[in-house]
């Protein structure tokens, strides 16, 4: 079974759930301190009732409806499996009409914890999806941090579909991330 390789891949997958739920605001926090990584993703999308929420851990349940006959939904199942195999914690809460909030936290001393991976590229993927949503990304490493908001990027560049704009966003995020990691050393 092929699963996501890095924590960045999990983040892309989970942010897409928020976008599919028609959120206008998604907040993503990725915090790394004292060898613990915590990721928190919350949105103001359609949310789920208790019955649906109870089913999201089931890999044979999907709320997506992208393909009528296909009955799998692996995004959250992958996360649950990953967290279980490296002794972390995760939880999801949701309210119909209000939004959904999900977090996971992993102790990086555990050798089974996947690497963070290319977080800058992952955030580019999350930022340049079509639609008018805002995505506020906050990255903390040790005692330093940076924040990037999708609406600010959109206002600055006027467009997030053109390859040259996306390349500029990627350079911007890569530089912020690189400087943060260097400072935190």
């Amino acid at each position: 079974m092929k699963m996501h390789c890095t924590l960045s891949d999990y983040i892309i997958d989970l942010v897409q759930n928020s976008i599919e739920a028609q959120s206008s605001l998604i907040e993503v926090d990725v915090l790394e301190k004292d060898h613990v990584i915590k990721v928190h993703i919350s949105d103001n999308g359609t949310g789920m009732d208790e019955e649906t929420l109870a089913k999201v851990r089931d890999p044979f349940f999907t709320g997506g409806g992208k393909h009528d006959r296909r009955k799998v939904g692996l995004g959250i199942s992958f996360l649950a499996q990953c967290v279980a195999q490296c002794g972390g914690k995760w939880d999801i809460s949701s309210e119909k009409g209000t939004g959904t909030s999900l977090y996971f936290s992993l102790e990086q001393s555990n050798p089974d914890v996947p690497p963070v991976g290319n977080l800058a590229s992952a955030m580019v993927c999350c930022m340049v999806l079509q639609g008018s949503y805002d995505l506020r990304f906050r990255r903390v490493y040790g005692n330093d941090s940076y924040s990037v908001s999708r609406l600010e990027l959109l206002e600055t560049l006027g467009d997030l579909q053109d390859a040259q704009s996306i390349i500029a966003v990627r350079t911007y995020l890569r530089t912020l991330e690189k400087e943060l990691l260097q400072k935190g050393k």
Partner: protein
Amino acid sequence: MAKLTLADLKKLRDEKKKELGRRDTEGKTTQIIIGMGTCGIAAGAKDSFDAFLDEIDAKGLTDVAVTQTGCMGLCHAEPTVEVIVPGMPAIVYGNVKTDVARRIVNEHLVEKKLVNDHVFDKPAADIIK
């Protein structure tokens, strides 16, 4: 060095635009649509996304839109990418690892030739049954 600001971001993009002599009014846009569903992500679509950007940058191509979509029903052949070049048929490519992404930019976008060994035209059997 001070932290990058949004003004720096704008400068980054504008310098690039100037360098490439891009005109905003220039008409026809090539579209690259990358399957970024769970199946695509697990197969490395993020790396392919990066490879497309790298090669577009290296070749100085303008008027290329890069977007993402969910699962296209070709989970067995992920990463999948649809390429729409004006004047050419829309093509869905499968197994687009980073090397294939670079080939698509060079062969399909630049030379206007299809990358025949990666063309996929049917979704998985459980979807069309």
